[in-house]
């Protein structure tokens, strides 16, 4: 697991209360039971953690954790 993936998983468990075992890269945000408010909250959390502005429209219910990780390239995150 990459450092970025560990940090993302840390956000999802500590801030949004998800269970670590569920956080497979192919899991969709809908499968993780994140509703619309949680998705916008997630974009705020990602910006605070990584300094990357993720467009709200990229965080759809069908998006997977892998989709988010693709947006968080090592060159962009801090």
């Amino acid at each position, binding site marked *: 697991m990459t450092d970025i993936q560990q940090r993302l998983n840390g956000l999802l468990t*500590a*801030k*949004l*209360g*998800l269970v670590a075992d569920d956080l497979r890269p192919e899991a969709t945000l809908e499968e993780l039971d994140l509703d619309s*408010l949680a998705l*916008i*909250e997630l974009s*705020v959390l990602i*910006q*605070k953690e990584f300094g990357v*502005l993720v467009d709200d429209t990229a965080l759809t219910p069908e998006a997977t954790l892998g989709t988010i990780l693709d947006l968080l390239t090592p060159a962009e995150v801090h």
Partner: protein
Amino acid sequence: MAQATVGRPRPRTAVTGLGLVTPAGIGVEANVDRVWSGRPTADRTAELDGLPVDFSCRVPGFDPVALLGRRTAWRMDRASQLAVQAARLAVADAGLDPAVWDGARVAVVVGTSLGGWNTVEREHGAFLADGSAMVSPLLMVMGPVNMTAGYIAMDLKALGPNQVVSTACASGNTAIGYARMLLETGACDVAIAGGTEAAMSPTAMASLARAGALSKRLDDPRGASRPFDADRDGFVAGEGAALLVLERLEDARARGARTRALIAGFGASADGHHASAPDPTGSGAERAIRAALADADLGPQDVAHVNAHGTSTPLNDVTEARTIRRVFGDGPAVTSTKGVVGHLLGAAGAAEAAYTVLAVERGEVPPTANLGRQDPEIEVDVVAGEARPIKPLAAVNNSFGFGGQNAVVVVTPA
């Protein structure tokens, strides 16, 4: 189900459950232990470091994540978290089971002054520091005052009338009064009513300190809330939630519930005088007390105990004592439980109504903590030192809010 109609006797309102999450502890037993032994709870508060007043009364051992689960807890302001726990405790104390009740017949009326102010302050800080993209979308489901009642409905599937009332420091009593009306009209069969407050954010505390409302006894926080004492210098802010389960007495009896006491009367009024100071004549407070007694069909001579608003501010305590003396003479045993738990603002009336219910049920008035030397201008019989046995005929709970809003509840034995 009973429906009130013209010509039918007015139904009486029973208190069948109490849920207390206060600085004195979580649950009825912890509160009785602390409040009836008169041990103050005020202490230094890390979040208030560097402010002109850096102490307050906080709920000990409150763990919202353990209670609600992280996935739910992070969506609620602390005011809602405290309220949900108090509601669960109240319902359990009443012997009711939300898994099987008819939720559409269960009302929720919560009193709060500032609601989710903590969250508003935090997100406003994020907006100023980092711009609009850093503002949480949850602000709009955490900040507004109505959410404190809304989250109780979600947690307990209490699906009847659901509302928040706000009359500053009288909110808790106002909520109980309105919930009783809902029961009398037949709009619900069960009402979960009371108050919650958790607004001791740095900005709110700075404002209260600058307004001169808070005690500045910085070297002695435990002795700071001293209602009716000659050396009192302001109130100590507290957080907490208190909810009561109310039912029509006939319904409570029909299901074999334990009735702790009755809410026999309610009265409300406005001073129409000043934004923060009480009317020095006490006429607004007096009208609320007399209205509550009339509503209960009782006279002043029937009242054995008054749980005073008793904030520990120089102005309130002397004005209130004069009003109590004018209405009741020197008869009733007066106490202010704020000496122990501080001033819970929008939850104060509800916590004190619960303590009044317990005083009537136990036949024992808790002492006013920190009363060393009673202010000679305060000519009422204040219970100090230790709890005092009473014959509980009727008891009165006073609450007066900023803005001059007054609400008074009369409690009688079951």
